[in-house]
């Protein structure tokens, strides 16, 4: 399985993402610049964290109109797994691939620490290696992770089991219903504020994030590799 790590001007978690997938997961990965014309050769698309285009105007608002995003939309429609982490999540929201929007953290502070997440839905292609209700430790690092959507959208998210991760215990940023990560209705686009790619090795303080990437590969193998 071959992943594309999309790099925007201002991305800064692209190297962590590449390391997680290539070195820790053992899958193929390539950096793909924001003006790329095609993503046809990739099986999974990863939108890393950072501050694309300096977060000017709003987080993700400018990146959403970059050339490669047309291809990301195409890949999403084709059912390929799309994972947006932190700024990547914000870009997916701005692009309309996921519903809702991000507000500034209710504390108005940039928060950088490890938090507990609860796996609310382990029946997605991103979370199948976790147990339902499993509590995992994943770092967060954001100033705008305060997820918001209106009541109608929230009702849909709940009805379709689209809330994949919530903050366990204290809510660090004020997000609606403690939401930390959601999938689209089809289940192949995940956006989350916490950074699983920073939790892939005990040496780095924890490896709870690795199962997320393993889940993606597991689903892909089941769908694409013929059993002997």
């Amino acid at each position, binding site marked *: 399985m071959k992943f594309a790590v999309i790099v925007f001007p201002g991305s800064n978690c692209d190297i962590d993402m590449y390391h997680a997938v290539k070195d820790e997961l053992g899958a193929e990965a390539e950096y793909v610049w924001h003006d790329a014309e095609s993503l046809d050769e990739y099986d999974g698309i990863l939108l890393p964290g950072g501050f694309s285009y300096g977060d000017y105007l709003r987080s993700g608002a400018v990146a959403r109109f970059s050339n490669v995003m047309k291809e990301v939309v195409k890949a999403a429609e084709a059912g390929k797994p799309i994972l947006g982490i932190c700024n990547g999540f914000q870009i997916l929201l701005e692009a309309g691939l996921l519903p809702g929007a991000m507000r500034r953290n209710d504390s108005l502070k940039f928060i950088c620490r490890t938090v507990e997440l609860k796996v609310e839905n382990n029946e997605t292609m991103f979370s199948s290696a976790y147990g339902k209700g499993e509590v995992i430790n994943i770092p967060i690092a954001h100033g705008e992770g305060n997820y*918001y959507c209106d009541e109608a959208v929230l009702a849909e998210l709940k009805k379709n089991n689209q809330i994949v991760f919530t903050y366990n215990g204290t809510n660090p940023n004020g997000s609606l219903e403690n939401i930390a990560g959601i999938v689209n209705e089809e289940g192949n686009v995940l956006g989350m504020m916490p950074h699983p790619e920073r939790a892939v090795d005990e040496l780095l303080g924890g490896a709870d994030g690795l199962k997320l990437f393993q889940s993606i590969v597991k689903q892909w193998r089941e769908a694409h590799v013929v059993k002997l």
Partner: protein
Amino acid sequence: MYKVKVFVTLRESVLDPQGTVVKNSLHSMNYSEVSDVRIGKYMELTVEKSDRPVEEAVKEMCERLLANVVIEDYRFEIEEAVAQ
């Protein structure tokens, strides 16, 4: 040529944490008459005349990029400007 002033603020239904902090600060300075503060963005666009009505073009720009209509409201003022 037009000069367009665009104002973007968080929707009334969306809590504005910056506005709340500023309101509390004003209260602590004894401006008790302030009942609400909303903080937003102000943008100035210089727009050349074209075949398209300027209102239509600016509205589209606001909807697509300048504001996120999920959480933000926008309004704009258009002034006809004389080229310098």
